[in-house]
């Protein structure tokens, strides 16, 4: 019974997509209905996964068994993915109401949901890799959904290629893991023996994770991916796909040796810091959120690295809701503005402002999600973030190296930057007065717009996860994840206190900067050299696109010259020299061999003609000369004898 249920959960989204493609006029409704069934099934399923694994194994290649399995942590994420996917489907009906290719859109979205669920369900590394790639492929298809604009096509290609680099390195790691005698089942993974190859395997796996979760140095693809339709950004590039790396890290936690985990934590915090810094300098409403996602993923990766993996997974959950909520709010804003003026699809926050009174529901939802993101008490983000930071602190205390304290302290600092850029976004978009041309007031009527945003905002309230706003350990999640979420240590109170203080300071700073002073001052900061440098992501993307990619193309071009300049002429020369050689033999044939023969012939001819003169054609003369000849021979014989 359970296996059928799981198969239903896996295949329903895809089926919904196919049905939507078949009946284009009602595509959104149909696929949303399918997704709602998936969500209900997933929720129901969760209620009876009691820590046990559900298994379904099959032989994919001869002698090569793979399988699906679900435990409680993946069941929680299955519910998460199907729920957010359902809400995004609903929102898409509203968002894409004017688009002509809705059928294709829902097919791709359904395909994505199916592959993401498959990724969460697979219990074999190769099976997981298969879905891992399919997720990347559907992301590519959705980024290039509006492919008429070549900019989107390029963005999709770069996103796919960046992922592909990391994925193939991951693939190598998986193959080496299998080659070293592992059967590849995730549930039976154990620590690797300490040797060179296990280090290589760990590094390969790590790079794969960094790529998918948009960590340093791979993160440049995520801001580019923002050209996708906004609901897609909410689902794929904020809530689910980019979290797949964190999920894999959670699954492979046992494989990494402690030394590598320290590296993972450092890379996580570097990404979190860089992402937050770049986000603070952005003016595009979606790109801010994209860098914020990078930064939050960095938090999760760091959480994994310091061993607070359950809290990191919890942060994945809370982040999925509030970040998807924020993206849908951004989508709501963009949709509102583009309806006012279809020719101008601006995403520039400098030209927004004062939208609070136009889009009240969006505003309040945005506020809740934002508070969850910056980590204020009473909101979900607070619980998970504090958990990660406490984990980092206790990790730093346990390690002998004093430098390790840099991690939790940087993490604290990042909450200041996060609060700053989110406050800035709130002020620029919703507060003050509208800075564009005139804006008509239109009521927010469509429930398919309001409902998903509201649901996501409500799920970002902390009380659902823990009754006490600040401390304590009783929570739903404890039940779901099956682990004790409690961090010991005397650091708890001062750390939480300073973190809240820093968040409030950050919000206050943004208010001081953008609300009290005029916009002119802000403009001048935006065009300063430092700001431009940071806003362009430290030119990392430029470095890839201007240095690495062209040099690769140049190499390819040069390699192709080997064929046309070296190999082809070489063999052509050989054939030409054979032809020349045969010409020479031909010449030899005609001049020397033929010449000798004709020489002989002409000698004979000349002799012949000479003798014809000697022998005039008379029978009597012949007779006489014959007799004379005979006599001479006889005389000679006589003398000789």
């Amino acid at each position, binding site marked *: 019974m359970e296996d059928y249920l799981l198969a239903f959960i896996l295949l329903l989204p895809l089926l919904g997509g196919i049905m939507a493609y078949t009946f284009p006029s009602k595509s959104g409704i149909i696929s949303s209905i399918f997704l709602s069934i998936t969500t209900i099934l997933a929720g129901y399923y969760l209620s009876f996964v009691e820590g046990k694994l559900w298994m379904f194994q099959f032989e*994919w290649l001869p002698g090569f068994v793979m399988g699906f399995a679900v435990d409680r942590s993946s069941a929680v994420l299955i519910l998460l993915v199907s729920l957010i996917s359902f809400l995004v489907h609903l929102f898409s009906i509203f968002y894409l109401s004017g688009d002509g290719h809705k059928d294709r859109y829902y097919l791709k979205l359904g395909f994505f949901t199916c592959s993401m669920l498959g990724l969460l369900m697979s219990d074999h590394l190769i099976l997981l890799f298969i879905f891992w790639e399919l997720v990347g492929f559907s992301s590519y298809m959705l980024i290039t959904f509006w492919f008429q604009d*070549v900019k989107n*096509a*390029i963005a999709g290609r770069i996103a*796919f*290629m960046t992922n592909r680099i990391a994925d193939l390195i991951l693939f190598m790691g998986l193959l*080496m893991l299998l080659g070293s*005698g592992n059967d590849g089942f995730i549930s039976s993974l154990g620590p690797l023996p300490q040797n060179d190859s296990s280090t290589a395997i760990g590094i390969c796996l790590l790079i794969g994770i960094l790529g998918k979760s948009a960590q340093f140095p791979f993160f440049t693809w995520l801001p580019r991916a923002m050209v996708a339709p906004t609901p897609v950004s909410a689902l794929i590039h904020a809530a689910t796909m980019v979290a797949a790396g964190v999920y894999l890290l959670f699954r492979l936690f046992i494989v990494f040796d402690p030394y590598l985990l320290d590296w993972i934590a450092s890379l996580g915090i570097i990404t979190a810091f860089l992402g937050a810094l770049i986000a603070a300098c952005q003016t595009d409403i979606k790109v801010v959120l994209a860098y914020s996602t990078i930064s939050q993923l960095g938090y999760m990766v760091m959480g994994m690295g310091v061993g607070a993996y359950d809290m990191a997974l919890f942060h994945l959950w809370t982040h999925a809701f509030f970040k998807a909520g924020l993206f849908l709010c951004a989508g709501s804003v963009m949709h509102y503005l583009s309806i006012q003026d279809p020719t101008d699809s601006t995403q520039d926050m400098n030209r927004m402002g004062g939208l609070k009174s136009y889009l009240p529901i969006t505003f309040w939802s945005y506020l809740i999600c934002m508070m969850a993101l910056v980590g204020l008490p009473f909101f979900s983000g607070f619980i998970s973030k504090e958990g990660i930071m406490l984990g980092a602190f206790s990790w730093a205390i346990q390690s002998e190296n004093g430098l390790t304290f840099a991690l939790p302290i940087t993490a604290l600092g990042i909450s200041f930057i996060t609060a700053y850029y989110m406050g800035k976004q709130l002020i620029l978009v919703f507060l003050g007065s509208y800075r564009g041309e005139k804006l008509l007031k239109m009521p927010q009527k469509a429930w398919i717009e309001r409902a998903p945003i509201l649901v996501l905002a409500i799920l970002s309230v902390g009380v659902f996860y823990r009754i006490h706003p600040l401390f304590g350990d009783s929570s739903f999640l404890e039940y779901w994840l099956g682990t004790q979420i409690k961090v010991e240590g005397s650091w708890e109170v001062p750390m939480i206190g300073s973190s809240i203080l820093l968040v409030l300071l950050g919000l206050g700073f943004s208010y001081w900067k953008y609300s009290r002073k005029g916009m002119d001052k802000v403009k001048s900061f935006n065009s300063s050299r430092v700001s431009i440098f940071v806003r362009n992501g430290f030119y990392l993307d430029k470095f890839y696109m201007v240095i690495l990619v062209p040099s*690769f193309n140049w190499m390819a071009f040069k390699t*192709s010259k080997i064929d046309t300049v070296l190999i082809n002429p070489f063999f052509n020369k050989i054939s030409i020299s054979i032809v020349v050689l045969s010409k020479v033999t031909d010449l030899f044939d005609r001049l020397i061999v033929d010449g000798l023969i004709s020489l002989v012939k002409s000698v004979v001819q000349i002799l012949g003609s000479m003798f014809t003169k000697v022998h005039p054609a008379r029978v009597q003369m012949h007779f006489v000369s014959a007799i004379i000849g005979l006599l001479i021979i006889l005389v000679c014989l006589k003398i000789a004898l």
Partner: protein
Amino acid sequence: MISYILSLIIWMPFLGALTLLFFNERQTLGIKIVALIFSLIQLLLSIHLIWGFDLNYGDHLLTSFQFVEKFSWISMSLGSFGSFNIDYHLGVDGMSLWLVVLSSLITVLGVLASWKLKQQVRSYFMLYLLLSTSIVGCFLALDFFLFYLFFELVLLPMFFLIGLWGGPRRSYASIKFFIYTLVGSLLILVVMIALYLNVGVLDPINETMIHSFNLLHMMDSNYFIEGSSLAKDSVLTFMGTPLRAVAFLALFLGFAIKLPIVPFHTWLPDAHVEAATPISVILAALLLKLGGYGLYRIAFSIFPDAALHFGYYIAICGVLAIIYGGMNAMAQNDLKRMIAYSSISHMGFVLIGLGSFTVEGAAGGMFQMIAHGFISAALFLIVGVLYDRTQNRKIKNFSGLATKLPGYSFVVMLVFFASLGLPGLAGFVGELLVLMGVFKLSLVDGMLPNWIGIVAVTGLLITAAYYLWTIQRMFLGKYWVREHSWEPKMKDLEMREWLIFTPLILGIIVLGMYPKIILDTMNHSIELFIAHVGNVKIKP
């Protein structure tokens, strides 16, 4: 009771070619229908073959052949030289079975793809059916002489099919193709004669040697005449290399030119580009497989010790082909040329799989050949669709085709992604198996170092790069074509084209999702093959 199904499969197209003699040049529709019917019968027969195929037949490579037909064909006594025997000897095992099915399927699709041909229809289809007979004959022959006969017979129709119905540089391309392959064939011929002289059984009655071209005898070291130059314990050398190694290298080179390997690959882009669409399809989907099959069946099976000795270098050849082919494909601006180079790149995996001497690697190489048969056929048909409409193939002359030709673009996306190895489609499985073989460290003394696998994976990245770049340049973006006169011709796929693409797409998806469907039939033979090949240890 002997079953004659293999002969039927081989000679069915030939029968079709004979039937075409009764038609005159103007009855084009009749000619096409006859060609279609005979190739369809061949396809049905080879599908029937799958049903009767026993998965676990035989317990040694030499006894694992099914549906065997063996008749004495030429037999004469040469006095003190012994007697001379050529058999008509056919048989099928798990490795050749799917190549036969693939050949007959591609033949049918090729007939459909040539449906619009207008000039010299009768001679075209006669040559085409003759080509089909000789290709299938190669896959089924178990007598070296018979194999060689078919192997050479492939050249003849191919030469004319490229040279008469090809593009502007067709005569250059066809001669180049002919000469390259002929050089390879001559190397094979020399080794074949040497083997013939070395292999034989003593006739118990009149104490003379009975020589034969029987491939099964050549694979069995017991049949080598004691003290002969190619026997297992032979110490004869040629310029310091043992004779067996020299013979293996000659065979390897002969087949590898066909596969092809770098640097003997330059015939391929020219021949593929100049040939008409259906002929390029046959070239890529089937002719390259002749080389690969020859390596499996002949070079490796007859000289396993030498093969093991050179395994490492063979894998390096494969890696070189993968990277070099990929880099070249990246730099091409002609779509067909790009695809031709991608074939070179993909065939490199076959060599790596063989060089790994593991069951995974060998099965992966074999699977890669089948999968590449489907994918490359679809790729060249894709080029054909565009070429039919515009007589142009330059990548930079098109943009945003997905807007105007959505069905076509769907096919392109699917096939391109299959070719770049997206999991769930056929291209991934072969590569996965081959790489699993390479990374399997413990087997056969860890013959291949890890870097081979690592570089091969880099090749996959290059593949993704050029396919995605092509998709972006040709199919995404704003719709635009260079010539205004092409506009009215830019129509989506018609019924006939869908009919050709559908079986290929189905094959690509089914093979990718459920590879066991062919790996199960192949597995037993591959295991026997590896047991035969891998058991031989290198002489100290």
